[in-house]
């Protein structure tokens, strides 16, 4: 009788021990989640610095590119073949931006096989533009600046092709707290050659 009471107590003790363990685990887990969803001031600043750095780098590249373009145009005033070449380069750039032609290049393929809400689709497109997408197609339909989505534009599964620096795109998509983690999950793979249709 005494023995069974001891055993009983021991079981309660062990159960309580684990309960304590679980409660604290849960507490830490909640804290982790809170950190991801609402970063404190220092973290917010760190995010801002990260974003600013990325943009500054982009701007430096843009300035370099514009220097070359200006230089070429200056030469073009008196040189017909240079003028033609410069214009062709510029035409190609704007054709890519407006989606008026087929394009080819390296990039990533994203596959999502569950339904995304309209807001999630909008956020995903926005994130792709943010991380340097040069051309985007969803289910083989080209996305341009003026593409407006509604609930029925695309249906699952979503096959998303993105042309751009494949390593940068891949890292930005799959990092912790990145858009894929925010959406849930997706398969992302680097591709050496993607071909996207005109819009």
């Amino acid at each position, binding site marked *: 009788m005494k023995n069974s009471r001891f055993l009983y107590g021991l079981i*309660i*003790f*062990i*159960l*309580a021990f684990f309960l*304590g*363990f679980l*409660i*604290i*685990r849960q507490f*830490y887990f909640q804290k982790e989640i809170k950190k991801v969803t609402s970063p404190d*001031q*220092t973290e917010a*600043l*760190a*995010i*801002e610095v990260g*974003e*600013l750095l990325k*943009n*500054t780098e*982009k*701007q*430096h*590249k*843009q*300035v370099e590119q*514009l220097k070359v373009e*200006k230089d070429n145009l200056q030469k*073009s*005033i008196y040189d017909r073949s240079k*003028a033609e070449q410069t*214009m*062709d380069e*510029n*035409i*190609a*750039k*704007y054709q*890519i*931006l*407006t989606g*008026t*032609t*087929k*394009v080819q290049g*390296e*990039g990533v393929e994203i596959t999502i096989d569950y339904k995304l809400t309209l*807001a999630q689709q*909008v*956020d995903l497109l*926005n994130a792709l*533009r943010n991380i340097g997408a*040069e051309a985007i197609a969803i289910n083989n339909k080209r996305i*341009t*600046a*003026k593409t*407006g989505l509604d609930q029925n534009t695309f249906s699952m599964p979503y096959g998303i092709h993105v042309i751009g*620096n*494949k390593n940068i795109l891949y890292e930005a998509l799959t990092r912790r707290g990145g858009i894929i983690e925010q959406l849930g999950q997706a398969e992302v793979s680097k591709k050496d050659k993607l071909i996207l249709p005109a819009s």
Partner: protein
Amino acid sequence: MVIILFIVGIGIGFLLTVQSRTKVSRVLNPLAPFASLKDAVLDLTNQQNQLKGQIETFNQDIASLQAQVKLSQHSTNNRSDQLEALQKEAGATQLQGKGLEIILDDSPSGPITSNAIAHAADLRDLVNYLWANGTQAIAINDERIVGTTSIDCIVNTVLINNTKLVAPFKISVLGDQNYLEAKVKDKNGLKDIYERVSSEGIQFSVRKAEVIIPAYKGSILIERAKVIQ
């Protein structure tokens, strides 16, 4: 007896877990990360403004050079026309005409909670909705929305085309005035925004207006994509 064991058990479970999760850390300087990050933000913001100015100057120079080339190289006229049409379509030129002016602003009263302010997500939804309804051109606080534009949020500011914007947001829209106005006023079309208007008090209004949509002030980086004819 059982109750005591229960309490002691929980207590030990608590302590052991806390113990195992606590790492001894060395405090070098509690202020350092915060202060240096603040400096970095200031520094980078200044740099960005300078670079933005440079890019704008380049764009102006390039536009006038393009006009000169057009005059001096008549044989390239077809190309010039094609380029100008594409630039217009892409948002590289200023546009003007009939359209809408939409204002989105934080809630004017009450405690400032993260829900009572205008979000980047509201702007994203609105822009997507406007394109879906046949809008021709959009600018938010004079930042043109082009193919590479993303609308992001950093804490309480909105970032569009490398530029920090704060509320109120003025969304200038070029397009069919009557049709677009009706669409923007349709509470089923912009459900999320109108819900936030009634529950959190954010400000949202639309009116017909003569609008100027400025040219995109940045530059477009295309490095990996190639045209296939």
